[in-house]
């Protein structure tokens, strides 16, 4: 005797199409045109910043860098949906969100440069993001931290929630699944945003997993709110994360939101994407660029024109330059010293480390081979 015992569906949501047209179910009440404008500005700033950061790497002024080009709408959408008190547990590519949660975008950009520039101070979060986790390099591992933070909120009965991002590649890690599973079992206030940018370095999304959507990964964990959104549509991202966070804070459990986007840049500056994807494919993806779409929408609404764009470009470059200046000031005039390898290891430095610290300080930066 066969009977159906469970049934599931995954929906995809888009509010603004590739040409900047609002779909008929565009949420009336939510983003005012001021907000839409602000979002667009933030995306442009990020795009300018990414370009500059790549340039710093190419000219030897910074280490390997991971650009967020093409994914700006995801970060803007999710960070806008978060409230004070919420915590972000990101990957290493959430530059936009970090900028929106810092004391100022400039301050965040300086920190992002410090991080990729090989200085731990780039990991010190600030502002409403002060409880946020720093960039996480080991793929997928941050999802467990998100569960822990959400669990702390639940234990303390605080009405706060966590947003945790993870890449399409990251969804293949056991950590990701263990985290979803526990979040489901304990009905924790956490929103997992899967930033599906099509690639994990060279491995394309369709080779990473056979699942039709990445949102459906939440079904394995008994998570009820599993949705796919157009990740290049900032409104769709915002709206999905907003609702998910509302549910989370109301004790209605975790969510999984898959944001479909595309990594327009190389994986990092150490990567050469031409080895594994065609320029044709990238060209097609560029047509769906979230910046084009947001700008088209604003133009359609009568809130944007070429002169405003020019002004914005100028402002953005100035803002980025100011962040870069701070970066240089810090690494050149206030560099960390060998001692800094020791002092943050524990609250109090153990005696045997004091000895090593002495040795480290007594020596000049030495010669080693290999670069």
């Amino acid at each position, binding site marked *: 005797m066969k009977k159906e015992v469970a049934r599931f569906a995954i929906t995809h949501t888009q509010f603004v199409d590739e040409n900047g047209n609002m779909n008929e179910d565009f949420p009336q009440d939510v983003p005012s045109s001021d907000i839409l404008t602000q979002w667009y500005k933030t995306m442009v700033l990020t795009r300018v910043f990414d370009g500059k950061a790549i340039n710093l790497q190419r000219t030897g002024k910074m280490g390997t860098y991971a650009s967020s080009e093409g994914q700006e709408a995801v970060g803007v959408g999710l960070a806008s949906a978060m409230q004070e008190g919420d915590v972000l547990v990101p990957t290493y590519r959430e530059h936009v969100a970090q900028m929106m949660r810092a004391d100022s975008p400039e301050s965040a950009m300086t920190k992002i440069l410090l991080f990729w520039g090989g200085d731990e101070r780039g990991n010190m979060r600030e502002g409403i993001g002060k409880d946020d986790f720093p960039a996480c390099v080991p793929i997928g591992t941050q999802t467990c*931290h998100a569960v822990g933070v959400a669990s702390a909120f639940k*234990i303390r009965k605080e009405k706060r929630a966590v947003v945790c991002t993870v890449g399409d590649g990251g969804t293949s890690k056991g950590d990701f699944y263990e985290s979803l599973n526990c979040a489901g079992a304990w009905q924790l206030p956490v929103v997992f945003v899967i930033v599906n940018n099509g690639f994990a370095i060279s491995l394309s999304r369709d080779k990473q997993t056979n699942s039709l959507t990445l949102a459906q990964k939440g079904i394995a964990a008994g998570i009820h709110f599993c949705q796919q959104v157009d990740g290049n549509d900032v409104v769709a991202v915002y709206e999905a994360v907003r609702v998910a966070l509302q549910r989370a804070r109301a004790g209605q459990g975790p969510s999984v939101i898959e944001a479909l986007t595309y990594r327009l840049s190389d994986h990092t500056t150490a990567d050469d994407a031409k080895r594994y994807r065609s320029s044709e494919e990238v060209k097609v993806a560029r047509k769906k660029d979230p910046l084009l779409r947001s700008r088209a929408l604003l133009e359609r609404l009568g809130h944007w024109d070429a002169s405003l764009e020019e002004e914005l470009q100028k402002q953005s470059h100035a803002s980025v330059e100011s962040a870069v200046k701070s970066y240089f000031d810090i690494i050149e005039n206030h560099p960390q010293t060998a001692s800094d390898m020791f002092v943050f290891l524990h609250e109090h430095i153990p005696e045997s480390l004091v000895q090593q610290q002495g040795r480290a300080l007594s020596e000049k930066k030495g010669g080693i081979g290999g670069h």
Partner: protein
Amino acid sequence: MVDALNMALAYEMRVNKHVVVLGEDIGVNGGVFRVTDGLLKKFGRERVLDTPLSETLIVGMSIGMASQGLRPVAEIQFSGFVYPGFDQIVNHASRLRNRTRGVLTCPMVVRMPSGGGIHAPEHHSESVEAFFTHVPGLRVVIPSSPKRAYGLLLASIRDPDPVIFLEPTRLYRLGKEVVEDTGEALPLDRCFVLREGKDVTLVSWGASIHETLLATDALLKEGVSAEVIDVATLKYLDEATILQSVKKTGRLVVIHEAPEMSGFGAEIMARVLERGLYFLLSPPRRIAGFNCVMPLYRLEEHYIPSVERIVAEVRELLAAS
């Protein structure tokens, strides 16, 4: 030792509302060794968390909790099952403070039963301490008596940074020492001299302390006076106490259950070589698990350093100098 550990957990949960315990079967079941017995009743489901069967998550989640000011005490059911949590321990718990230059911290304890001798199935008898001593940013603690278990566990929970706390299963039900619930912690980073002696220094930790003490008794009957040091806190090592003793006796034997190769005995030998070479009257020795996989239980008594082996090797050492 089980009761002492349970008492320490209960004490600290009572006085510090940020302390939570989590792990597999630690709630209604009270832990497979009953170390967390009764905590669920006393402190409720919010602070005594039965987790899904996910060691990676148990450690990783504790990091998230700790970053928010909780003091998680995570239990790994047996130390042979800690490896899925190794990534989170090495790449995150030990580094969170350093990575964020002190903005986020990670005060947490990962407790686990350790070592063999209880006739358990495969993977239930592992000695894993050496791995953790190689990881910067961790502390590693192994008690060898109920009193030290109580005091060191309190100290570990109160430590503002991550501590790996290994509990010798073989000692869980051994020894009937009365422990008072004073709430007094013992110092971390300090060795304990359990016996004073003048002919040879025996350095050990965890369950092997038991055989070391029995061997010391046997040796005493032969007129050999051995000093016994319980390292207790392996990381950071209190090398001064060990060097002082070796200076006095001129002879050193390190005894541990984990495989000899790259075991923590090697680190102690290295320290003595670097800083106590001229104290030595004869070549020191390690008496350790052989460099083979911990066997299933019918052979485990061939694997774990026995009283007889310790006595025999100390005799050989003394004969050689």
